[in-house]
């Protein structure tokens, strides 16, 4: 059944490309990487001071998305996961409520990304599930729907 493997889109001149589905990041890939590294350092600083909300605010600000920034994406996931892992379960609802809607949507993206790569780095399924439950209670199912529709994949 090799005809099933034919890439029919290659013969369609009107085909919609992945990159046409979202506004590209104005920063170039080197800039994105250095920004993400700075964020990681700032997040560590905040975590050392015990400021979880502040750390999460920094970690969720202008996340890398799009093509060609894989290194920055992985780094950003590590940064977010490090914040999630170092939060006490009882603090989670208050932290989530203080986030803006934008940040809640971005956090949900990272939670799903983390769940897609179990055992990678410090990703822990049970921590992510705990955050997912609390985030859904705060931001609703709409937040999950937005993760699925948004093509600015982190």
């Amino acid at each position, binding site marked *: 059944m090799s005809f099933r493997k034919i890439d029919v889109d290659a013969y369609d001149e009107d085909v919609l490309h992945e990159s046409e589905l979202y506004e590209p990041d104005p920063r170039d890939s080197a800039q994105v990487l250095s920004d993400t590294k700075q964020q990681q350092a700032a997040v560590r600083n905040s975590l050392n001071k015990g400021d979880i909300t502040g750390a999460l605010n920094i970690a969720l600000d202008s996340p890398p998305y799009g093509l060609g920034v894989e290194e920055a994406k992985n780094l950003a996931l590590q940064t977010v996961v490090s914040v999630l892992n170092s939060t006490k379960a009882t603090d989670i*609802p208050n932290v989530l409520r203080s986030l803006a809607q934008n940040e809640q949507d971005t956090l949900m993206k990272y939670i799903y990304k983390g769940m897609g790569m179990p055992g990678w780095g410090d990703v822990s399924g049970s921590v992510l599930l705990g955050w997912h439950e609390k985030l859904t*209670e705060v931001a609703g*199912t*709409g937040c999950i729907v937005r993760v699925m529709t948004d*093509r600015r994949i982190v």
Partner: protein
Amino acid sequence: MSVPEVYSIAQTPVTCHAFNANRSQVALSLNDNKAYIYVNQGEGWAVTETLAEHDKAITSIDWAPASNRIVTASQDRNAYVWSQSPDPLTGALVWKPTLVLLRINRAATFVRWSPNEDKFAVASGARAIAICSFDPENNWWVAKQLKKPIRSTVLSVDWHPNNVLLAAGSADMKARVFSAYIKDVDKRPTPTVWGEKLPFNTICGEYASPAGGWVHAVGFSPSGDVLAFASHDSSINIVYPGGPTIYNIRISTLPYVTLTWTTEGSIVAAGHDCQPMVFSGSEAGWALVGTLDDTTSGGTKFTAKTGTVGRLNSTAFNTFRNADTRGHAGGGDVVGDTELLTVHQNTITSVRPYEVGRDGAVKRVSTSGVDGKLVIWDVAAVSVGGVAGRLGAMRI
């Protein structure tokens, strides 16, 4: 607070509905290849006529109030205009179809008459919108196509009150405003906020929601100066073209698939959440106000144990939640109640104005749903508590 009028029409989904001018009859598609005309018989609706000409499911129907013509669009790539004429044998008025030359090679998805009823727009899966006008020489409707820059299926259209501009929502995640000016039909339009010179296929605006998603529904405000669109990222966007200023309201529930303006400052939107929601605002800002579906006043239906409304309160959800939290499936407290707390028991497919007051404001809207219901709502009966209750319930 008035209670909505609820009519259970069918056991099958009602794909779309369109009332006639005096609201005594309604044309429905029950998700098959026929359009059914129901007449109000005091205590309910009964089928009086069946419009059978399409080969595949009818996707959209519109009824022109002044000229009393129905247009149907179908997955069979055709549209028909139906008008009443006397039957040669019996003399009774029957609906007769007229062919429309759409020239599309994919399903027709949505159809709307223009305000002057001399044109209609058919959205399609062929990355095109057919603007149809009547050709008296051949006694059929001919189409001119809006193609560029549409990249995917067009899911909805809405006419500007000036009979020239057309808004379209598409699966390429964009809402656009086009000029659908037809030389032989339209007079030169006066300049609007959307532009001054408007030859056919001028793109007057192109907008997208920040988180993307198919644009399911578009709508011009009554004045035509503001555009609203609902997209699959569970958000509704209101566009003021001057700036342009775009207000994006993200909601906490499932996406809307249909919307209608009720006044210059309020919108009713409905969809997968099974209840019509009201938004209001002005150029200074927009916000969710409440729901028309006041679930708390239902009395008998509302019980304390089920605080959530909409899809989160299904038996299936409760069963899995119990299985998760208590380690057993099908607890004793969730026996057999598959009913949602909302009036519609499934996705609302279409919301349309039903009664317009003297001041031009819509007083009542009608909705049809996948649950086979047709419901008429009073737009003044907004329940703010319902929303607060629901949002409260989200944080269990």
